[in-house]
């Protein structure tokens, strides 16, 4: 480039834009100011109502597809030229109802038992589960809802059975009404709302976790695993984080996020500001672009469970825009879970009062933009509005408790029972109370 010195315009234009994550609480401030300004505008009540309705219908589509045609932020593309390990391939399922048709199709398959749930907005969601007798490779079923779990209809499922070695699926995640993935331990993708699914070749690795944010999906793949069936993630010795644009199957390894250790389901947590991955007592963090992740170095305030790598330790993380929460405790003799919070992305931590749940009972930790924490456990769902005082959430507790709880908005959340019951559990008050919603 002989003209670099002579043509600063070219050089300036070719310099990548450095991404600048928003300061903590920035969205809250922006949203508050926007709401105030909107209120100040002299609009009629009727027009105002129409505007809100239009936003509710159209904005999710706009927002989710915003960056698809936009150049990927080049400043953070530092991918090492590693080979793509997961070219698309494999059979497709027979075309079936799309997620977008949820609420307007046939009822869910008889005997549907949910395993995993995903929501792509305040009302549209899907569950993956089992129905009927599990023959070779075929008993996975899916159902969709367009009214946050009140009504369910059948949607097409990937042609997979329950976990069996590196085959089968047990979890589902949709980015929007079009792009979704069924996984754990195999990996299937759809880009037409579930009408058709195709297998992604993981080359024998097992997909332990998968999450989506921004315009990408991230997946944790493990190798060296010895577990079978539902314990497919046990015994794994190595892990590697991969990511892909949401609407494509271009999975590439995320630099800086691989190594030895036992990756557990739920260890990958993403926000719009960044992602976290906890593996065997190590915390990794990085951008939710295709950029490099890093191992967060321990500091004097780092909890012990992030300094040692004890195998019998439960570690659950839940980030929101302001904080990263961590619960941990040994499953051997500990009566309650330690709770910690970091407001600088895992570099320094503050200890909070313990959670009144035995470590070996905790299964899932969630938080929401508004801040409350929800802990799912074998004994029920627990709620804390300030990360200090905990109360048991109101509502039914199925036998065996819950395997998962997550918040899709500040008010709406969903939980999945540990036992195969034909229902999911819904909250619409921020997690204080939960109701069973049958899937039938």
């Amino acid at each position, binding site marked *: 480039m002989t003209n670099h010195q002579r043509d600063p315009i070219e050089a300036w234009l070719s310099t990548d834009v450095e991404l*600048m994550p928003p300061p903590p609480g920035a969205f809250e401030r922006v949203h508050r100011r926007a709401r105030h300004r909107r209120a100040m505008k002299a609009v009629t009540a009727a027009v105002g109502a129409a505007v809100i309705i239009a936003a509710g219908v159209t904005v999710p589509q706009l927002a989710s597809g915003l960056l698809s045609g936009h150049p990927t932020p080049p400043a953070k593309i530092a991918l090492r030229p590693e080979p793509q390990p997961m070219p698309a391939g494999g059979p497709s399922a027979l075309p079936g109802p799309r997620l977008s048709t949820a609420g307007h199709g046939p009822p869910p398959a008889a005997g549907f038992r949910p395993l995993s749930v995903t929501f792509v907005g305040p009302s549209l969601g899907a569950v993956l589960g089992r129905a009927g007798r599990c023959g070779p490779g075929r008993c996975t079923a899916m159902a969709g809802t367009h009214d946050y779990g009140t009504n369910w209809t059948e949607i097409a499922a990937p042609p997979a059975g329950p976990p069996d070695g590196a085959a089968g699926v047990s979890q589902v995640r949709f980015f929007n009404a079009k792009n979704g993935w069924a996984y754990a331990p195999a990996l299937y993708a759809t880009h037409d709302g579930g009408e058709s699914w195709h297998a992604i070749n993981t080359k024998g690795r097992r997909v332990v976790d998968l999450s989506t944010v921004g315009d990408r999906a991230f997946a944790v793949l493990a190798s060296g695993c010895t577990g079978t069936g539902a314990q497919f993630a046990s015994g794994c010795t190595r892990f590697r984080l991969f990511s892909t644009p949401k609407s494509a199957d271009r999975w590439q390894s995320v630099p800086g996020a691989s190594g030895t250790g036992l990756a557990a389901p739920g260890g990958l947590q993403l926000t719009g500001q960044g992602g976290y991955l906890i593996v065997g007592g190590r915390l990794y963090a990085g951008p939710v672009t295709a950029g490099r992740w890093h191992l967060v170095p321990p500091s004097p305030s780092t909890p012990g469970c992030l300094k040692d790598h004890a195998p019998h330790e439960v570690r659950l993380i839940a980030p929101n825009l302001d904080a990263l929460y961590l619960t941990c405790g040994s499953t051997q003799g500990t009566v309650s879970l330690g709770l910690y919070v970091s407001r600088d992305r895992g570099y320094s931590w503050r200890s909070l009062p313990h959670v009144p749940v035995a470590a070996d009972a905790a299964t899932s930790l969630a938080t929401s933009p508004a801040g409350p924490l929800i802990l799912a456990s074998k004994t029920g769902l627990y709620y804390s509005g300030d990360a200090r005082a905990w109360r048991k959430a109101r509502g039914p507790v199925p036998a065996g408790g819950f395997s998962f709880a997550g918040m899709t908005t500040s008010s709406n959340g969903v939980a999945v029972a540990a036992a195969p019951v034909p229902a999911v559990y819904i909250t619409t008050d921020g997690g204080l109370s939960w109701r069973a919603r049958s899937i039938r």
Partner: protein
Amino acid sequence: MARLRTADREAAEELFNACYPRLAGWVRRLVDDDETAHEIAAEAFTRLLSRWSGLDNPQSYLYMIATNLVRDHWRKTSRERRAIRTMAATVPKEPSWHPAQDVDVRDLIESLPPRLRSAFLLHYYGGFGVKEVAVLLGRPEGTVKADLHHARAKLKAAVGEVS
């Protein structure tokens, strides 16, 4: 109604999380400090969210607002910056130009006529195609292409004069 408001907010947050880092970074290259970049990016989002439900392309609108805010910022600070440059003129310049020295190029872009500047920033820096810029600015594509050509020619000429 509460559910609709929740939907609105959730979609707004999704948009914010997806677009803010790049928008703020984009602005940062056009202003002098991180704080101003964050202020402008936040203000652009505030204006967008206060009326976004009627928009077909919120991302384009964001960049248009940000472009205008950057222009306003330049206008406000131009007197101060001129004074600083006058003082700095006594300091010997480094012998070679480095891409990181955005301010020099920024000054040149700032000196472009507004008509050329908007097209230049949106296309070459905002990453929008000629067609999108044409829609954003309400001009024919051919006109935008010509504006971009003229903008580059002016900038190159200005660089020649400076050096």
